[in-house]
């Protein structure tokens, strides 16, 4: 459920099942909108990466114990100033503050645990709702991107 931190004004909302073609179509659609607004290739790279990570987390972790056909909800809004995407799963949620730092020497050889840090690295801001089953990614366009 969205809260003030993860709400997107005037968003388009869709339900998405764990199907690679559908995921690609949605991400391409969002990026096409951003590209038509003149976002740079590095901005598009960042936005694609963050959305991919959030969608993968929702299905792989959020829906780990749910029926594979359970859909997630994606909301998005693209303007010339910002791209906002919220991804909400139907799982129990998690607490992002408890994630170990994957860049610590002792964690470098661990194969998982980098998705959230990549979202945070590439987006202007990343907010989770209190339950931890909804994340809002926001990329504010810099003056030169």
């Amino acid at each position, binding site marked *: 459920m969205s809260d003030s931190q993860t709400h997107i004004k005037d968003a388009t909302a869709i339900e998405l099942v764990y199907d*690679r073609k559908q995921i690609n179509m949605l991400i391409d659609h969002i990026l096409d909108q951003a590209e038509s607004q003149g976002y740079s290739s*590095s901005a598009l*790279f960042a936005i*694609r*990466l963050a959305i*991919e*990570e959030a969608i*993968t987390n929702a299905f*792989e972790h959020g829906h780990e114990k749910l029926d594979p056909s359970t859909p997630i909800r994606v909301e998005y809004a693209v303007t010339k100033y910002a791209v906002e995407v919220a991804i909400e799963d139907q799982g129990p949620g998690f607490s992002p503050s408890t994630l170990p730092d*994957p*860049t610590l020497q002792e964690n*470098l*050889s*661990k*194969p*998982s645990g*980098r*998705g959230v*840090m*990549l979202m945070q*690295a590439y987006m202007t801001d990343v907010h989770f709702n209190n339950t931890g089953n909804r994340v809002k990614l926001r990329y504010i366009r810099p003056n030169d991107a």
Partner: protein
Amino acid sequence: MTDSRLRISENDGITVVEFVDRNILDEANIQAINEEITAVIERADTPKLLISFSNVDHLSSAALGALITINNKIREKTGQLHLANIDPQIYEVFVITRLNKLFNIHETTDEAHAAFTS
């Protein structure tokens, strides 16, 4: 069995792996890639692997995870892994995650070839 998502060749005792796809994002594909490279590692006594990213535009943290698993398996067999031809935007992902400290990364496949020790 699905089609291979990799091009694998041998050159002077070094197994060279290239990706067919420009985007390495899909969990199922990543798992298939992981299994295929693992089979190569298991066949060798001391595996020497060069992975070229020349065709790759995007990869996800799951793909990084597969690379780490591959690296761990090669180390268990005291083998060598070198990466090459990584797009600057993707290299930045390695830097952000500090995985540039874990992997041996080279600009070109020639430089990577030269870095293998016998």
